[in-house]
């Protein structure tokens, strides 16, 4: 079991209820395969930096979880058949925000002439 970060983008025609439903569906797949979810977020609708399938925006959904490699393979398979999903990304979770926050807290002051930085967490 390893920790993963999983982001996927839904077609803009899907409404918010549909998006949350879809998020829950993928969370269920992970749980059914023995994984567990530590974070589940709806980032909401965002404009794309470039068009994807002629769409200019989409709903971003985020899951942080633990899963087996088999589960990831299954997720990727399901994602491929889900036509509402425009994009997806599954990468190993390296606890980046937590590590950055810890480092910022530990070493306030010099040589950080810029003072406290904005938290890297984007939500």
């Amino acid at each position, binding site marked *: 079991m390893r920790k993963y970060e999983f*982001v996927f*983008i839904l077609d803009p025609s899907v409404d918010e209820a549909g998006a949350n439903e879809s998020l829950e569906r993928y969370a269920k797949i992970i749980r059914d395969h023995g994984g567990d979810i530590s974070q589940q977020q709806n980032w909401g609708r*965002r404009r*794309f*930096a*470039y068009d*994807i399938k002629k769409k200019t925006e*989409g709903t*971003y959904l985020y899951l942080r979880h633990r899963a087996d490699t088999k589960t990831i393979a299954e997720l990727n398979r399901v994602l491929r058949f889900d036509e509402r999903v425009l*994009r997806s*990304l599954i*990468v190993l979770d*390296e606890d*980046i*925000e937590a*590590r*950055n926050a*810890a*480092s*910022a807290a*530990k*070493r306030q002051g010099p*040589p*950080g*002439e*810029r003072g406290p*930085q*904005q938290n*890297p*967490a*984007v939500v």
Partner: protein
Amino acid sequence: MASPRKKKEKKPGRKKPCKLCMDRIVAVDFKDERRVRKFITDRGKIAARRITGTCARHQRQLAIAVKRARHLALVPFVKEHYR
């Protein structure tokens, strides 16, 4: 001996500080769009280390973060016409 033809010799100059080190960043996050955007050119390319002064370690992390952010359309691959 500096050759007389060369008008300007490149001075070693002071090394630019790595912004990410200054901000005490341990790992660059692809989700941090605002930060990632600071390290791409107006064309959407990943900015060179000699331009930004980023240290080797952070530049490596940055390259991965930019590519992930591009995949999710948080950041452009190219910007042909800018507004």
